[in-house]
């Protein structure tokens, strides 16, 4: 990745933090595993989604965590709709 991108956290209530590929990768992988996807496939999907998100981030001066989540969900939906559903809704379960 060419430049460091800062992610503005939810509603600006928490401090801004730099984008971390590993963090996004872990959350996508966990969403895939939650819907019983085999480990290797979850890893591959998480890599693909992270790569797509990083390409998208290169074009943005600043990004909120909601934007990041929306983009990740869109990309994940193309590869695994069930995992994308859980990833998108996990804050809306209760």
């Amino acid at each position, binding site marked *: 990745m060419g430049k460091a991108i800062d992610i503005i956290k939810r509603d600006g209530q928490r401090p801004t933090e730099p984008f971390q590929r590993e963090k996004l990768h872990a959350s996508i*992988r*966990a*969403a895939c*595993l*939650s*819907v*019983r996807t085999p*480990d290797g496939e979850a890893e591959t999907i998480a890599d693909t989604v992270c790569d797509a998100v990083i390409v998208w981030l290169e074009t943005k001066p600043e990004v909120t965590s909601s934007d990041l989540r929306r983009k990740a969900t869109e990309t994940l939906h193309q590869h695994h709709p*069930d*995992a994308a*559903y*859980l990833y998108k*809704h*996990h*804050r*809306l*379960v*209760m």
Partner: protein
Amino acid sequence: MISSLAIIAFAALIHTSFQLSVSMLTLLSGHAIGSKTAHTKLIRLTGGFSLGVAVMTLLLLTFTAFLLQHSFGNNVPLIAWAVCCGLLFGLGIAVWIFYYRREKGTSLWLPRTMARYLSDRTKATKQSAEAFGLGLTSVIGELLFIFAPIVVSALVLIQLQPFMQLIGIALYTAISLLSLLIVGGLVGSGHKLSHIQKWRENNKRFLQFAAGSGLLVLGFYVYVEQVMTATAMAHGGL
């Protein structure tokens, strides 16, 4: 006696239709499966959580029955039944209006800070003992809505013989756990959480309507059986 047990069973069915514990169990299972927890440990976590819910439900019901028996003895005054009916009617309408938020997913009426706290606690739960504590907490979190079914069941219980009281308590606890046991069974048997959550989201309005209507129907039944009948008998009408 049959009608007493029927009231308890119906109140427990209403209790089981409330969704906070199910939401927490879904989240707990999701985090456990997502972090590659072994299947036996997943079963222990969901089992610990369900046990916590069962214990707290049991404690709440018996404590409420104890308080009511201490206050009224075995003869519940008419005013207590009337207040209980008012509670059931009020909560029935509150469930219709407030229970689910008007947004996607299955967000409940809980204040967002509390929902976030419970969600974070659920995510941090790794041991069966923690899951047990989480189960206890989830019942307390839902207290506002389960209070009415518990009070009406307790009022019915204190009028029964001691042996039937035990049966009534066991019946209430078992039925109130049904939804958790179903979700726990589905997760344990390998069903996808996304399918369970989609079903919950697609049917949330029906569940909300059923729970609210159940409270109103129960309130009406108790009013007719306990308040109107007693009033009519007191005036020599029956």
